[in-house]
């Protein structure tokens, strides 16, 4: 758990025209900037949202806080609070540290060349997500990060693809290969769980960074594309866990039982996660395509 100060929307300072546009479904918010939505009849930025500092204990509390406010504030706040937690707190860093530790253990334990190759890719992806987070931390640097952000976004998208296919491949290996020892099996399943746990955050970071450099339409596209890819990988994991559960019911799970029991509730949380749904959803509507900044 963390206790952190984060910047959240100061709803008292929202322009009346923005409040009206939100209530009429004519505004779209990306990374703290409200744009006129597609079909609103207008284009461009409505308002750069005002922020105020607040303290949160954990994600659940922060989301409750966001949802306990007015309907308009909820629409504005929910995604922004989650994004703030991801960017401004140790939430992401803690997850990344855990993955890095597991990657190190797997790399040490499994010497197969293809595994080492992928572990390198994952370490690179995790590192790039952390760099992107660092660029996002200070909103006042928005104009200065463009040149760094462009190549970083290209790398992130490509590494994300590799990581997703690796999750898919490694789960197939665990399921079908008789050579996977119980120790390796445990590492693989834990690793897939952790990677899937981090992916919505990674995709959201890509989306935020793209928005930050003034490409809201591209940001929307990245988020939707990433969500589709993530849901595909999550589906593979879901099937994997269902098969494992089926084996347990049939009394045929054997030495995989302890792994299943250790991961069951975390897998359930991941598969049913509301946080991830919010992280991978677009605010209502899409940005009007013409006369966009940048």
């Amino acid at each position, binding site marked *: 758990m963390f206790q952190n100060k984060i910047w959240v929307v100061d709803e008292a300072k929202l322009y009346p025209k923005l409040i009206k546009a939100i209530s009429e479904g004519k505004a779209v918010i990306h990374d703290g900037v409200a744009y006129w939505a597609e079909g609103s009849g207008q284009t461009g930025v409505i308002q750069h949202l005002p922020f105020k500092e607040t303290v949160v204990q954990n994600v659940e509390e922060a989301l409750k806080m966001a949802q306990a406010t007015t309907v308009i504030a909820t629409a504005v706040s929910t995604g922004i609070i989650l994004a703030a937690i991801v960017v401004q707190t140790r939430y992401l860093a803690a997850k990344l540290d855990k993955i890095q530790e597991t990657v190190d253990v797997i790399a040490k334990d499994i010497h197969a060349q293809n595994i080492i190759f992928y572990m390198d890719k994952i370490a690179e992806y995790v590192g790039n997500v952390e760099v992107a987070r660092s660029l996002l931390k200070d909103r006042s640097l928005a104009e200065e990060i463009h040149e760094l952000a462009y190549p970083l976004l290209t790398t992130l998208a490509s590494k994300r693809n590799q990581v997703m296919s690796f999750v898919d491949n490694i789960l197939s290996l665990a399921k079908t290969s008789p050579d996977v020892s119980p120790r390796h099996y445990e590492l693989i399943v834990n690793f897939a769980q952790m990677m899937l746990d981090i992916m919505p955050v990674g995709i959201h970071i890509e989306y935020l960074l793209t928005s930050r450099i003034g490409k809201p339409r591209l940001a929307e596209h990245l988020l939707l594309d990433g969500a589709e890819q993530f849901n595909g990988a999550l589906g593979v994991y879901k099937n994997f866990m269902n098969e494992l559960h089926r084996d347990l*019911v*049939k009394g045929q799970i054997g030495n995989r039982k302890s792994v299943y029991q250790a991961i069951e509730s975390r897998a359930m949380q991941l598969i049913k996660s509301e946080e991830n749904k919010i992280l991978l959803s677009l605010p209502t509507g899409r940005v009007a395509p013409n006369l966009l900044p940048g």
Partner: protein
Amino acid sequence: MGIKYREDADLDFLQYCAEDDLQVLARYMTHDKDGGQRTTSELLEDKEFKRYAGKSDQYKTFWKLIAGELQHFGGDTLVNLFRGTGVVYKEILSDVCEKLKVKFEKNDSAYEIENKLLGKVITDSWENMSDEQKKELLKGVGLDSKLTGSSALLALQTVLKLGGAASYNVSTIVASSIAATFAGRTLAVVAGGGAARSLAILTGPIGIAITTLLTIPAISGAAYRVTIPLVCQIAYMRRAYAEQDRF
């Protein structure tokens, strides 16, 4: 003495089962056919279990007590006393199958042995079924209802050996017939499928076959009157939950 659950890979799944299903399972151990409480059952006397009386998840919370009692029923009372635990489920199932002359291999899993037991019940019931009932059964397990005679029975036995949905449907029909005959209640069928329709029409002949099996002198002992319905109920529950996605 207190009920102790012995780690048992074939009973671990009970923790995922619904309250209704566990109640039926427990009922075979706690009450006889006429509704009288069995003196051999310790479950209803367990202090913690009693403390949860009336709660909606009483049986689910104490699934280990139920599984432990089942293991005790399968073991010899005196041996249980010394050992502190009963016998594992596969041993109980094998014992039932040997008594009923069901052929199985030692290396078979409990799931495979249960399929063979279900096959035996269906085979014994087959002769008591009318043509309409046979057709309904074939349809219920996804077979061509035009099949007749020994080829129909052979096809039925084959799909049962394969497990899956056919085995689930048959287990539902068998367990429901037993529940109606021995526990005076119907099962809350977990999943749908062809079996639900076949239940009413097939309860009669399968009930007769089970009753006949239980009255054969060699297997009419009190323990078998409990363990045979128990393993059929377990077989049904296992298949019902194997058919569902947990995640």
